[in-house]
């Protein structure tokens, strides 16, 4: 709660009138508008007197004085919502009424976004629905359609993080002359299941650790799916979903291992599964220890790409590993930037991510350095032939890194203004990855159609 004197300073100039609310002799609330003056040095609100016996506020009991403002937006509704509510007893002086506030409550959407304001109401929402459940004898829970709920609970759109490294592994293998489309699809399904299992596990363990509840600034890219927190799904349902995804992923992975080379693929699959499960799960809880980025780098980079390559080619490939490094860095940076708005909640829950540990300048410098490294790897790889030379077209994605970098500089403390820049980070990873794949496709087409392709198409 803000100190009344400080709050009083915000009233004049921001509100046109006050509303005095009190209880009348029948116990009904009565509310009446009036003019006001603020005397901040005395911590007093001076209200103009009101005429009429029924409209005159009492002097012997608590009243509520409210200042409310909106700005109409024709054809839309309104914005600039703010209100300040004060409670206290009125005193009559020189034909005016004076209030020394004893309690206050306020909200200004320019200070606290509507999303944060809403998030702070989640415990009240849960209490209300629990009370209603008890009153009605039926479970009252919020609802979403099955499709939307599945999308929200699994964070399905983030599957691009899996699609890119798998496609890259398959593309590198295809350039080496190995192409089995059915195996490529099975690889993608298995990797997607492990990824979705990870997303759901993240929610389960962040609920158990209190990290999601402590975070009042979730965005569409951070703060988890919140389906458990909101009561859309139970913890038990999410655990079942998590196990289901891991079971399907592991089952397909086992099939691929048996049919394409057991020990290498078993090892790759096990490493991926281990990182996925213990990313947020105890006892390791990698993300709590500040190594979430390394896990994401490995899991959504070399592990998926070399795994996809091995399924196709039954062999290892340094090229596949090298090709995975830029996308691995960029997906780790997606997580890294997404952790920026989660800092307060993560810190409260003991989740010591890198943005929790580091200062703003360090976080931004590491972002810039890492993004530059990702593109330097592409440039060096394409020039030296460590990866297919047409992949140099992936450098075209560089401009997408700039809004993220500038967003971190400008909106480090403003989660909802940073949100579009976080989206750019996702696009940066996807665009770079897809351009790398396109580079490989160009090289594949050239190798099949030109007897001796020029060096820049190899």
């Amino acid at each position: 709660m803000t100190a009344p004197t400080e709050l009083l300073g915000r009233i004049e100039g921001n509100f046109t009138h006050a509303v005095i609310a009190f209880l009348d002799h029948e116990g009904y609330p009565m509310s009446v508008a009036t003019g006001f003056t603020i005397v901040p040095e005395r911590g007093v609100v001076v209200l103009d007197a009101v005429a009429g016996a029924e409209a005159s506020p009492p002097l012997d009991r608590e009243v509520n004085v409210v200042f409310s403002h909106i700005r109409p937006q024709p054809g839309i509704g309104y914005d600039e919502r703010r209100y300040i509510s004060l409670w206290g007893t009125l005193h009559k002086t020189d034909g005016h009424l004076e209030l020394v506030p004893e309690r206050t409550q306020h909200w200004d959407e320019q200070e606290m976004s509507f999303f944060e304001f809403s998030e702070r109401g989640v415990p009240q929402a849960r209490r209300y629905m629990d009370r209603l459940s008890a009153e009605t004898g039926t479970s009252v829970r919020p609802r979403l359609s099955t499709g939307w709920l599945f999308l929200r609970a699994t964070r399905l759109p983030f599957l691009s993080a899996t699609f890119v490294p798998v496609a890259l592994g398959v593309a590198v293998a295809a350039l080496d002359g190995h192409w089995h489309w059915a195996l490529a699809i099975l690889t993608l399904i298995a990797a997607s299941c492990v990824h979705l299992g990870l997303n759901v596990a993240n929610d389960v363990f962040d609920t158990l650790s209190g990290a999601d509840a402590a975070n009042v600034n979730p965005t569409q890219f951070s703060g988890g799916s919140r389906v458990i927190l909101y009561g859309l799904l139970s913890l038990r349902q999410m655990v079942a979903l998590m196990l289901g995804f891991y079971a399907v992923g592991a089952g397909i992975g086992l099939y691929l291992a048996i049919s394409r080379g057991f020990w290498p693929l078993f090892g790759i699959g096990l490493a991926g599964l281990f990182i996925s499960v213990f990313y947020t799960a105890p006892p390791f809880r990698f993300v709590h220890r500040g190594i979430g980025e390394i896990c994401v780098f490995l899991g959504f980079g070399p592990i998926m790409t070399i795994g996809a390559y091995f399924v196709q080619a039954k062999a290892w490939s340094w090229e596949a590993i090298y090709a995975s490094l830029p996308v691995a860095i960029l997906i780790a940076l997606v997580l890294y930037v997404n952790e920026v708005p989660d800092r307060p909640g993560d810190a409260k829950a003991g989740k010591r991510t890198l943005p929790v540990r580091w200062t703003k300048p360090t976080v931004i410098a590491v972002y810039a350095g890492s993004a530059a490294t990702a593109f330097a790897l592409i440039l060096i790889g394409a020039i030296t032939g460590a990866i297919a030379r047409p992949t140099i077209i992936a450098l075209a994605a560089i401009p997408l890194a700039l809004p993220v970098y500038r967003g971190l500089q400008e909106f480090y403390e403003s989660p909802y203004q940073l949100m579009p820049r976080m989206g750019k980070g996702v696009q940066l990873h996807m665009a770079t990855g897809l351009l790398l794949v396109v580079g490989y496709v160009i090289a594949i087409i050239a190798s099949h159609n030109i007897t001796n392709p020029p060096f820049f198409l190899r």
Partner: protein
Amino acid sequence: MGVLPAPIEELLNTALVAELTVVDDRGRPVTHPLIPLYDGERIYLTSSVLFSRKLEHIKDNGKVSLSISDPNAVKVERFRRATIQGDAIVDDADLHSGWERVLPIWRQKEPAIDFFLGKRVALPLFFERGVIEIRPRRAFLWADGRTDVAPQVFELVGAGR
């Protein structure tokens, strides 16, 4: 012609915000800015479960008042102010879609609500809402908005029943 005097109905039909005062569990007034909706008989306000303390208070004590006071929030030829006292009930039998019965009136005042409703997946709890239905019992009208002049008082007992 509704149950309220025409000048007050006109205010209710255009007001983008009104101040709803309820009585809390310690018998103190608590005021909340909300969009008032009016169908000629009852006044409706909706509240998300996220901000549902007012719903709890009304369930415990249905005595409420609603003040239309903000000159920026109403579009009438001659500005005036009004307060309506009444008895409120909360309809929360179907939090998910029960409130949609007042959506046509809501939409007239805040067309953007359809856009937000389309984003329901992003704000699921915001659209779990109870409906506050107020049956007016007494109304006060300050014809030119000046409250240093005594209001006209309209007894409406029996109205909206």
